[in-house]
């Protein structure tokens, strides 16, 4: 993903997105510090820190703020948010850690062997490397519950496929460039997929439809077929199977 390279821009800055939204841009790069600031401001605004805000959408380096111009005008909101940026604590209020059990390889993780060959690693070394990393949910987007993760070890960075595949299953664990992902709904994708999780990132019938949110920390735990089948069955029965790690 190309980094913005426009003429000198000073960050943070606030840009209009029409008459009912604005974007608070914290930087022009993907890094943890930027994401932490985005999430911290999202949490404060979602908690009602400023009147007239309808919803916020945290992304890699910017926060989209939807507002009701009948309650707050864009120019006034810009001033309030700039003030908040000047005195904002950059720590996130609550940090959640989740361990995602994954079955490497198989039909859904069909790119595993090819990727190992490409990286000149053994299959088990690749799995160990992927499962040892600490990931961070930078944003949820593209589709309901789809998690964009940062923290992929550099050795696993891999360009997207030239020709996207037509159907990738929900729960597929992917690699696209320097990013990692967990699919939430079936659909086409040009990413490479090396594993799957029995966890459902999105289930509209569940009390908490979305498993993850921006700012969450994620680690993968390799599981075997037997455990995967056991978890699949539990998920199908609607039982909560996610593992929240102690902070």
């Amino acid at each position: 993903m190309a980094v913005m390279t426009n003429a000198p821009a000073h960050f943070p800055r606030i840009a209009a997105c029409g008459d009912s939204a604005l974007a608070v841009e914290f930087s022009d790069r993907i890094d943890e510090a930027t994401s932490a600031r985005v999430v911290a401001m999202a949490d404060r605004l979602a908690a009602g820190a400023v009147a007239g805000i309808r919803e916020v959408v945290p992304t890699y380096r910017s926060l989209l703020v939807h507002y009701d111009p009948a309650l707050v005008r864009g120019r006034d909101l810009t001033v309030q948010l700039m003030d908040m940026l000047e005195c904002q604590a950059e720590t996130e209020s609550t940090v959640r850690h989740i361990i995602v059990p994954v079955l490497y390889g198989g039909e859904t993780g069909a790119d595993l062997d090819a990727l190992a060959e490409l990286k000149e690693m053994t299959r088990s070394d690749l799995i160990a490397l992927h499962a040892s990393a600490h990931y961070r949910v930078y944003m949820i987007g593209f589709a309901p519950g789809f998690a964009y993760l940062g923290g992929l070890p550099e050795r696993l960075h891999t360009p997207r496929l030239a020709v996207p595949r037509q159907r990738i299953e929900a729960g597929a664990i992917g690699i696209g460039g320097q990013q990692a992902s967990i699919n939430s709904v079936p659909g086409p994708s040009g990413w490479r997929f090396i594993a799957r999780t029995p966890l459902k990132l999105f289930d509209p019938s569940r009390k908490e439809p979305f498993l993850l949110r921006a700012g969450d920390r994620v680690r993968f735990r390799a599981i075997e077929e037997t455990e995967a089948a056991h978890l699949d069955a539990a998920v199908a029965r609607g039982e909560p199977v996610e593992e929240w790690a102690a902070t």
Partner: protein
Amino acid sequence: MSVLNIKDAGPMMTVQDLGRAGLSRFGVSGAGPMDPPSLRMANRLVGNAESDAGLEFAQVGGTFVVDAPVRFAVTGAAVGMTVDGKPVHAWESHHLLPGQTLRIGAVVNAVWGYLAISGGIDTPLVLGARTTHLRTGLGGLDGRRLAAGDHLPLGASGHAPLLALRQPLSRPRGPFRIVPGPQADHFDASAWKIFLEEPFRIATHRDRMAQMLDGPVISAFAGHDIISDGTVAGSIQVPSSGRPIVLMAERQTTGGYPKIATVASVDLPRLAQAMTGSLVRFRAITRDEAEDLLLDQSRVLAAALSGLEEKGETTEIKETPTTSGRSNT
């Protein structure tokens, strides 16, 4: 519970309410109608809450029967329609009784039409709304387009008078107004000159998610990839093809193309209703101006919604010499 039976459906008919708000941060598109004022008006005409679910259709409606008496209204544009072969007007409510057949034909000089039924379409709430999001198969009837043979549950329909909109909904005219940004500075002066001075054509490639524009190519000197960020309905993305894409109701929540500008909220339903092949021009206004326009339009629409006139207590369907329905009379 009463039921709306679909005997025949146009190619693009879905259940829509005012949208699935508040879940963009979880990747859930707001969806909702392409022309929200028209759905709100249709609901008001039949005595519903403005937020009740109705049917949205493109180009042509369909054929419907009910198993209990209801009131219905069609809005969006001029639409040719009949009850048991007798022409009835759009933009006012009518009775539909069991045994009668409602036929809704072509939308005239627009794209999207709306059918509201008293009681509202009562499909299950999904994430707080009944709106259909086709890409992810959420809401409406199994998250899909409607087809012949579908049965839609209706909410309870109380007594209310038949109503008519006597003054047509005021639609803005002239160039489509845009607010520059959020990535306005990815485009140099010559790109902006093209964007604001040349006409674009409403491309055939259009759906509930996005409207492509044919015409001059717009180049972003800073590149056509950005770190993905949030989108709004009306965001004008410019991918490396240089052909602008306006994101519509069913947009993805995030995107990685630079957004040169955002269509003013008051002009977005008009863009949705612009005929394929027609020419559009853009004019830049300030955010303040766009907010003023939106607030003014909200007041005008609220007055129109609360100022509907009773048609009088006739249950007879009046015969009229034309099937084109009420347009801007």
